[in-house]
Structure formats: structure tokens, C-alpha cells
């Protein structure tokens, strides 16, 4: 399996901890952040192929982080995670440049498939 550099951003520490460990088991190189500001700073130091980003976070929300990422690093793919039954935030996120969105709880195979598709899509550009 090809190895991606993933930045996982979610304010729920337990979720970030467990999902990042799973992604590492699947061969991903994973960094994590629990705040939007930290995520942006980390991207400045080390580029990621894909950012997996929770939409609802305290302080800087996921859609704002997405906008900032796409402004500075347009080639970085972003996949949104949303806990709402509504797809409104996900659709708004795609309008802002997200590759796709997934509802929590995520299916790990589906998440990895989305990541792979996002990297293929950027390679074609």
C-alpha cells in the first residue's frame, strides 16, 4: 500500500489518538493536531498529502481551517469529518475546496479509499 503523509485534526483527543494509531497500522505517516492553529503551524513545518479535518471544533472551526489551508497550500487535499446528520457542512466544505467529506463514525477502509482517490486526483492536475 502506498504511504501517505496525513495530518489528522480533531479536538477529541481520544478519537485522534485511536484513529492515528489505526492509520499508522495501515502504513500511513500520521501527525495529529487538536486545534486549528496548531494544524496550520504544523503544515508550515511539514507538508502533508492529506489533511483529515473535523468540521465542528471549538475556536477556529473546520471550515475556516479548510479555507486557510486551501489559500496557502492549494495542492494539499482535505477530507472533512462531520458528526452531524446533516450534509450541509460537508457540501459547504466541498465548495470551499475540500476533496470530500465523511460522516463520523468513519469506516477506516472508506477513509483510506477517499485519501487514495484524493491523491490520485491531485496527481492528475
Amino acid at each position, binding site marked *: 500500500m502506498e504511504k501517505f503523509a496525513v495530518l489528522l485534526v480533531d479536538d477529541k483527543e*481520544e*478519537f485522534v489518538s*485511536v*484513529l492515528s*494509531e*489505526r492509520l499508522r497500522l*495501515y502504513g500511513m505517516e500520521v501527525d495529529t493536531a487538536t486545534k486549528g492553529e496548531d494544524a496550520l503551524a504544523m503544515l508550515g513545518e511539514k507538508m502533508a498529502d492529506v489533511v483529515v479535518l473535523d468540521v465542528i471544533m471549538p475556536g477556529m472551526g473546520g471550515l475556516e481551517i479548510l479555507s486557510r489551508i486551501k489559500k496557502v497550500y492549494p495542492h494539499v487535499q482535505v477530507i472533512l469529518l462531520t458528526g452531524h*446528520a446533516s450534509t450541509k457542512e460537508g457540501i459547504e466544505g466541498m465548495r470551499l475546496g475540500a476533496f470530500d467529506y465523511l460522516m*463520523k*463514525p468513519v469506516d477506516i477502509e472508506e477513509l483510506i479509499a477517499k485519501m487514495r482517490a484524493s491523491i490520485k486526483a491531485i496527481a492528475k492536475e
Partner: protein
Amino acid sequence: MKASTEDLIRARHLAFVGRVTASLSHEIKNTLAIIGESSGLMGDLLDYTAPPAEWAPYPRLKTLLTTIAEQVERSVVIIKRLNRFAHSMDEELVALELNDLLKEITNLAQRFARLREVGLETRLCSESLNMRSDPFRIQQVVFHFIEVSLGFAPKNTTVTVASRRDKGAGQVVITDEAPPRAEWLKKQISPPYPSFAETEEQSDRDLGVLGPTMAKLGGSIEAEDLHPQGNRVTVTFPLEKG
């Protein structure tokens, strides 16, 4: 119809209940996500690190992890229903599709049907019944009629919820195989509505609310006896609430 101050206050009360419930459902979903990922990680660790052929607890642990994953999935479906139901209280006049709403409300009523050992089926029309109305009130009306049918229906029979278009209206037809009760039902839903003090039976109290609720929705209710046995309630909702 112009909303009274009392109506507006009630609408804001409902919106508050809906907002808090939706927020709680969001929190529960986050917790489920952590449970789901944790059990997923346990499964991955077993697969990556344990020698399955030599380790006796391996098959049992895999089965238990599958059970956890299935229950998380089931809980997520229930939480999504709760979230959508909570959001139905957000606004009194929204664009909605009646069949979608009927699917939601019959899903919510399935547990009551199971407890009564009565089947609950939908036969929804294939065309979209798009309307502007109050989703919470429509669900309340349909749910109460389903509940009454379930309450009267003999065990191992089926209550059916069907839909159809009738000119400028969407109709919901609820049918059961219980002894005829059209006259009783008409009395419950017509003025003077049974007062809350006059009856102790839950379904009666709820039915007393339905007359005024239908008046708000601008719709109508028709109850008929079926022969030799059964009941049909037809609830008509205008596609555009006044």
C-alpha cells in the same frame, strides 16, 4: 393563518428542545466514533500482532469486536434518526418531502410495533410529495394515529402507512385490522375536544391535541370502518400550508 403570540412562544420552546437534543445527539455520535475506532484498533492489533492459529481466544475476541462494531453502527442509525427528529422542531414552515417524513416517523414507531407484536409497514407512492409545512406537527399527527392503530390492532396483524397525492394535497392512509372504531375516533378528534382532565388514557389525551394541530396545518382527517373488520384513517395535508 397569522400565528398568535402563544403559537410563537410554543414554536420557540420546541426549537429550544430540538436544538439541545440535536446537540446531545452530536455528542453521543462523537462518543460512538471513539468506541468504533477503539474496537477497530483492537481488531487491527489482533490481526497485525497476534498469531491467530495458535491463540485460543482469537476467534472469540474477533466475534466480540464484530458485535461491538455492529452495535455502534446500529446506534449511529438511531442517533441519526434522533438528530433528524430534533431538527424537525427548528422551524414551523419548511420545504419537505412527505414520503421522507413518513419513512422517518414509521422508523421511530417500529419499536412500539415490536412491543405490541404488530407489524408496521409502509406503502409509499413513488412520486415525490413536496410541500411547505410544519414537519414536527405532521410527524406528531401521523405518529399518534399509528400509535392508536398499534394499540387496537390484534397481535400478529399489520398496520400499514400509505401515501398518495390527491390534487393539491398529500394524503397519508393508515390502515389496521382492529375492530371498527370510526365513531369513537371522530369523537376524539372533533370539537369539543376531550379535555385532558376527562380522560386518563394516554392515546385519548394525544388525540385531543390532533384536532387543533390539524387546524394549524390546514388539513383534514377522515376515519372509516372497514368490513368485515378494520379501520382506515386518511389524513390530508395541503402541499402549501397557509
